[in-house]
């Protein structure tokens, strides 16, 4: 049985850092989406998302990221994803997610991107 998706949110230098662990499937998204949204969207927080411990992403996970990116853009903020595992990155390449949400290699680059 897979462990439930976990989310951890911290703030530093006016950037929200979100760490996700587990599978971004329908139950996982149902579990974290509301908390994720309320933590970053209302105040328009620039956000970096650590995907290094996300083993799988389904269409609901993509939908969550796309929805968040659009909502943050409306509040003049950015979201940047970083360190996706190879299978997750393959999904990102297939759907060309980079055209909607920046995806970079590591946290340092993500923070630089989010701050500009």
């Amino acid at each position, binding site marked *: 049985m897979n462990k439930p998706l976990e989310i951890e949110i911290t703030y530093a230098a006016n950037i929200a850092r979100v760490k996700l662990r587990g599978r971004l499937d*329908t139950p996982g998204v149902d579990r974290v989406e509301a908390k994720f949204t309320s933590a970053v969207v209302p105040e328009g927080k620039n956000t970096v998302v650590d995907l290094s411990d996300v083993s799988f992403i389904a*269409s609901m996970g993509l*939908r969550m990221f796309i929805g968040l990116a659009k909502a943050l853009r409306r509040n003049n903020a950015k979201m940047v994803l970083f360190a996706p595992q190879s299978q997750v990155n393959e999904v990102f390449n*297939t*759907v060309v997610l980079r*055209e909607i949400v920046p995806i970079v290699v590591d946290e340092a680059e993500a923070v630089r991107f989010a701050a500009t």
Partner: protein
Amino acid sequence: MAQPEDHGDRTTIYRREDTLPEGNQEEFGHYMVVIGGTGLGRRLLLDSEPITIGRDASCDMALASPDVSRRHCRLHLVAGEVFVTDLRSTNGTYVDGKRIEESMLVPDGSIVEIGQQVLKHERRRTREVKEAQELDRDLEKARNYVLSLLPSPIVTGTVQAEWFIVPSAKVGGDAFGYGALDNDRFAIYLIDVSGHGVGAAMLSVSILNVLRQLALPGTDFGRPDEVLNRLNAMFQMENHNGMFFTIWYGVYNRLDRSLVYSSGGHHPAYVVSPDRKAFVPLTTMGPLIGVQEDKRFSRADTRIAAGSALHLFSDGVFEIADKQSRQLGLSEFLPLLNQPAVEGRSEPQRIYQTVRNTARPGPLDDDFSYLVIKFA
């Protein structure tokens, strides 16, 4: 004894009387739910009478499968607990992945495997089961409606089509179609709406009907890039409850054997050579449909050799967890395209059987939709 039901296939399941007992709806019942194999979703109520399972027609659950013994095992309720007894079957009875010796307790939530048949023990309030059964019946109707929109296989002619679809949650967001645009051109497409369940199915039906009826104003359906551009304009996610979809759309012209195609957020389709030794991916790497309003899609083309086959499928075909719970992907799936045909099975069925044998017990995580177009 309940009458056997003829499901039009080789398996007949004798179902115990599983209507709810009168009286206290808060009472609990022990149910064995089919989560893999034939009769997916069916619930078998356990009561004072044991249930025998086997290949023999006299069994309460008869399974026409070569890996099931004539009288394979028995399920029974003893002092409020469910037990399964193996009746010296050849291939064994498994509880939570472990082969049993004689009898074994089956706790609530445990899984019993008999060949390809997978049953899960659920101890539930009878009221909850009644509500779930009503929902299942509605979902079944929705699923049947979506299936009724899919085209019939084409078994004769220079372009033939065969397919196999298994929705994951009774009804899903996958749909596909094909058909002649005129005497020379033949369109083929597969869509996959984000998520699954009734909402995704409703959107997939809307898209499918637009494509089936060629109902995109001012659009040349022989131009895949135009089709995707128009669909993208028409189905922006903000207007469709946050849903988007992927699509692969192609048009084959029998005069020059060209196949022109466009893809939006979809993994490649593959053209498999006549000798099955090679396959070529076909993709234009376009983005998801319904996400970026100003996006323009491109098209590409290729030539189809006589005897080739186009394989078009949803990501539920390859995004599976295996028996060790390892997540598999496209690279693990692709070698199946080179494998030989199996007599008596269509190509999509062959692929499904291999995927099913590889995946962990229980329903697949996503819709399984597989379409093969053969070009003479």
